[in-house]
């Protein structure tokens, strides 16, 4: 009864979303017409604001940074207040408290999507979508954590778990499949949940002794995408070939505007590219570019589409841009060294990640040399 009360209070709690009215006012280009007059030149609708870089371009045909012509400027829909609600809103505080009771971090992302984080630094994220149709999980962490994860889920919904999507065959993504499927089955359930994953996930799990047959995906797909409608929104599962492994997927909750990216995006950690499991650096970069293709930021590159990483904090497009930049730059550096004839040992000795190590070489995540070796071997294939 107490749990129902908590759930009811959480579901009824209003989310402070600011009104997003466009102001619709005409733009004044920071006094640029006045500046042009002072210089004795005609004002052409452009200007270089003082807050921008005005450095020379070294790519032919590309101007240095400039403000856009006034006709192209637009007031974009703004959601800063919602973003800040994510930082420290009243509902987040309530969720944090119920999560603490379960020993699991609980955060509202937006819409119908939440993220659960295990107590350990290296525990992955579980994305949860709740509604009247039931509960959908993206990844399930480990069997050991399943009771805590389930307790946290029950603070969000009392409905049965009907869908589990695995973004990868890794044990910290599928380990809780069976336990959560059992725990999440209620008298109202119609059988066990569907467990969705790309067919390569199932192939990778065959022969893994710690994963029982009951934990295997029972609803796999071999096509580029699989979609279904659940809790009032389209859910699109897209395979990202040859990325971290050969079975990775991302999950896009279209109405909630949230992407669950699995281990294709792990802010603060180098990507765990497993060549033996069919992964490769170009696939990893392609996957990040696909995520960026789907995300649409709100006002000035903040908020809008949110991205739940496989490990690490809740992010938006700008954070994925930083990560894509890192992987791309390191790939280019290693490629350049290969072109110059460097061996793997010479590439490692050149330390092509040395300006990123303080940010991305975290305990429990791939070491710089491990990442560099994966990039090297990917490019040499």
């Amino acid at each position, binding site marked *: 009864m107490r749990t129902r009360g908590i759930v009811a209070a959480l579901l009824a709690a209003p989310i402070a979303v600011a009104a997003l009215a466009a102001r619709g006012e005409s733009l004044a280009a*920071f006094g640029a017409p006045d500046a042009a007059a002072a210089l004795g030149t005609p004002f052409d609708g452009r200007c270089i604001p003082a807050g921008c870089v005005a450095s020379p371009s070294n790519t032919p045909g590309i101007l240095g940074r400039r403000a856009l012509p006034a006709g192209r*400027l637009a007031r974009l829909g703004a959601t800063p207040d919602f973003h800040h609600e994510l*930082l420290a809103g009243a509902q987040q505080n309530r969720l944090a408290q119920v999560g603490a009771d379960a020993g699991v971090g609980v955060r509202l992302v937006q819409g119908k999507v939440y993220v659960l984080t295990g107590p350990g630094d290296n525990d992955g994220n579980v994305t949860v979508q709740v509604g009247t149709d039931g509960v959908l999980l993206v990844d399930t962490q480990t069997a050991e954590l399943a009771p805590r994860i389930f307790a946290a889920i029950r603070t969000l919904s009392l409905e049965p778990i009907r869908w589990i999507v695995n973004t990868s065959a890794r044990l910290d993504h599928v380990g809780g499949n069976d336990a959560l499927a059992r725990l999440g089955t209620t008298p109202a359930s119609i059988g066990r949940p569907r467990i969705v994953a790309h067919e390569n996930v199932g192939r990778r799990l065959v022969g893994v002794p710690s994963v029982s047959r009951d934990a295997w995906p029972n609803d796999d797909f071999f096509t580029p995408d699989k979609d279904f409608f659940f809790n009032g929104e389209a859910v699109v599962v897209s395979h990202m070939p040859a990325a971290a492994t050969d079975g990775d997927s991302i999950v896009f909750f279209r109405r909630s505007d949230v992407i669950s990216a699995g281990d294709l995006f792990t802010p603060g950690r180098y990507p765990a590219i497993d060549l033996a499991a069919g992964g490769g650096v170009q696939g990893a970069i392609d996957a990040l570019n696909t995520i960026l293709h789907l995300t649409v930021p709100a006002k000035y590159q903040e908020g809008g589409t949110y991205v739940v990483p496989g490990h690490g904090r809740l992010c938006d497009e700008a954070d994925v841009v930083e990560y894509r930049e890192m992987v*791309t730059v390191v790939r280019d550096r290693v490629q350049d060294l290969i072109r110059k004839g460097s061996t793997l040992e010479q590439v490692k000795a050149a330390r092509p990640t040395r300006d990123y190590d303080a940010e991305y070489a975290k305990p429990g995540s791939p070491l710089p040399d491990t990442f560099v070796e994966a990039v090297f071997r990917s490019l040499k294939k």
Partner: protein
Amino acid sequence: MRRALLLLALVLAAAPARAQVDFSGEWAPLYHEDGPERGPGPELGDYTEIPINDAARMRADSWDADRISVVTEYQCRPHGADYALRGLGNQRIWREIDTETQRLIAFHMHWLAWDSERTIWMDGRPHPPEGAPHAWQGFSTGLWEGNTLTVTTTHLKANYLRRNGLPRSEQAILTEHWTRHRDYLTIVTVIEDPVFLTESFVRSDNWFLDPGQRLAIFGCEYAAEVPKPEGTVPHHLPGTNPNLREFSEWYGFPFEATRGGAETLYPEYRSKLGGYKPPAQCERYCNCSGLLTCNLK
């Protein structure tokens, strides 16, 4: 007697419980400090007087300004809370007061640059947990130290220390000290960044009260400006950036002095400049206190 008690009660009721300066108003920036950097923009390869480490130096050497044109996600990226104070720094500050208790809940700031808005919470609320999203303006709380407001900001998104590629990480903590002297506002910022700085980086900025200021809308729309393969990230491979010596050559500095690091912050570093001879005549950024006075070449 009753009148005296009533008067005393009124005086006590009107007196602030503790020092609370009101920073509300329209504030216009003064660019006399670091004018060239803040107006037209920093020179490429100018890392002087910033206590950066090797990682920051390498990241900045790799940076290519074309990234801002080619990568659409960069085109409308705003300054972070630390740099916003130095850019197009015209700002409006206003207070949020609890009408029931008359206690200060927050200062709000609106910047001309990117229409950025920032809140400094004054009601004692805690900073968000580690897993919370980060924001360009971060999450700020303030405390009074006498008449100075000390602001602590966490949860910043990764951004820049200078607009020439010198990075500032999302792990940085920004501390500000706000002081108002009648119609002037001074904010001293201290950035501590365990990823890119070897010691605290201190800067200051000033504004004057400008009641007639009316902030325009900044406005920005990202758009593909040149056809490029998706995922292109312009950058310079190690050792290939052709622009890094421009700054030292223009000003006659030893190249090593332009590479930054804690040592270059302190006066003792002058002894290492040895035979430095400044150019006979200033030709660049000679009297740069605004965009139109910088003698750009």
